[in-house]
């Protein structure tokens, strides 16, 4: 939350305006399209169980793991057909929101 007094430029409709840029603007997250091959935690919580192993073939709709969060046991389902390339968490791990849990290929 440091005061940002640096003058920068902001492009609005092909014109560059000399101005201060807010920290909110400078720290904005650039957009990334979602990838069904990367399973992320949609909420912070604890991994209760993992149902798949590296190298296993999976189909859309298969249960991958249980993420326990806010007193709910959430089943994470597979959103695409593929093979489990990497499992990046272990049973009992506590994960924050947006953590990569499983990568498929």
């Amino acid at each position, binding site marked *: 939350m440091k005061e940002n007094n640096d003058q920068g430029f902001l492009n609005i*409709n092909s014109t560059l305006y000399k101005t201060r840029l807010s920290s909110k603007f400078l720290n904005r*997250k650039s957009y990334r399209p979602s990838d069904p091959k990367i399973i992320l935690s949609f909420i912070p919580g604890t991994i209760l169980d993992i149902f798949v192993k590296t190298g296993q073939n999976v189909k859309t709709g298969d249960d991958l793991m249980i993420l326990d969060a806010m007193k709910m046991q959430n089943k994470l389902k597979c959103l695409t057909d593929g093979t489990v390339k990497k499992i990046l968490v272990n049973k009992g791990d506590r994960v924050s929101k947006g953590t990569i849990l499983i990568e498929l290929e």
Partner: protein
Amino acid sequence: MAVNKKIRELQEKREKIFLGGGEQAIEKQKAMGKRTARERIMALLDNDSFMEYDMFVEHEARDFDMDKKSLPSDGVIIGSGTIYGSQVAIFAQDFTVAGGSLGLMHSRKITKIMDHALKMRMPLIGINDSGGARIQEGVNSLAGYGEIFFRNTISSGVIPQISVILGPCAGGAVYSPALTDFVFVVDKISKMFITGPEVIKTVLGEEISMEELGGARVHSEITGNAHFFARSEEECFEQIKKLITFIPWSNSRKARSFEPGEPDKRYNPETIVPGNPTLPYDVKDVIRSVVDKSDFFEIMELYAKNIVIGFGRMGGRTTGFVANQPLEMAGVLDVDSSDKASRFIRYCDAFNIPIITLVDLPGYLPGVDQEHAGVIRHGAKVLYAYSEATVPKITVILRKAYGGGYIAMSSRHLRADFVFAWPTAEIAVMGPEGAANIIFRKEIMSSDDPDGMRKQKVEEYKAKFANPYVAAARGYVDAVIEPKETRRFLLHAIETSENKVVKLLGKKHGLPPS
């Protein structure tokens, strides 16, 4: 003799109650840099003006050994007094008594003073310093909060409601301040959140301090929940007193008039604004160049700085100012600045305060984050608020007024009563570069020297459209004025709209985007 004895008895009872939670608790309060509830009231109100009510109220809780506990005044002080001679009703939670926790009688005292303020049509000031619900009193405590929220809502837009956060204000309790008009916070003292650091740690495993989660700075800079930030309780009280001078007692009155005074000559409107529309300047200096005594009282100074809002006086009358700030984010409209401006416009409208809008913006902030955050519905609030407002609306276009931003910033089309433009104004569908790229795309693309052609076309467009005269020719602008004439035109507009009457269609209520 008997009378004397009874008077002494009353004095003794009072003295005991004045000690609140006792000397130890008071020491603890002081160690946190905080004053006691009664000291706060005394510091805020005019000397000897405070009349306390319900001093002898006691709780009736029986469970968990509560029947053995005496809680002086049940942890909250209520009453009324004056600020610079203006009546205000006030309550202050006493943290030294059971942590200022809210039980049934505590809440009944608060709702009593709220009902009083509403009935008597006077502003209500609430000083919050409480650990939250009094758990021992169970659902009665929740009922108390609900009764407060209900009254905050029905009083909204009728009497001014001011919340001062001078301690913790957590869980459901924060919804009362959120329902009021202005929230004051003090660095290191105010703490506001729905779920605290401990819950967040347990449930989510994230560690954060109270200060980082919901301290005064956070609410002033990031969340927009607070309107005034102070470094000390003294500074906070001065801010409240100043605010009280600008606002009326209720929606059926106008704010008090003051002796008018000329602006400080240091603020010369002719030299503040650069001619090149891409260069920044501080729009607050333009406000100071037109308001009485150059006295501009800014609201939400640290939040969404790309728009400036606040009060000043024109010819002695309170006036609300809304101004794009080219110094910050080029003065664009975005989610946060739209929220900030629209709520202020509605405040002014509810309390009979004319609005002066100073326009200089290149448009809306582009970005996925903005679109996904709902800049459509947030931006729409500005259109709604200006269109709905029936108080005098006066607009001065200083430089850029492009596209949707032009329409939104209190344009003639949203029923501004007066629209003035400086000769530097550019009222157009978009900036010259963007417009030339679209209109002359073919010429530019097929040219042997596209850059040269683009420059030429931009200049052509500028000469033709980047001025106030196209809009003035249609009557969308009432007068093109010299910067130094601005105060004169504004005073004229404020004076002539003193008795403005506009009747909107009768309806239960509209559905402003939220």
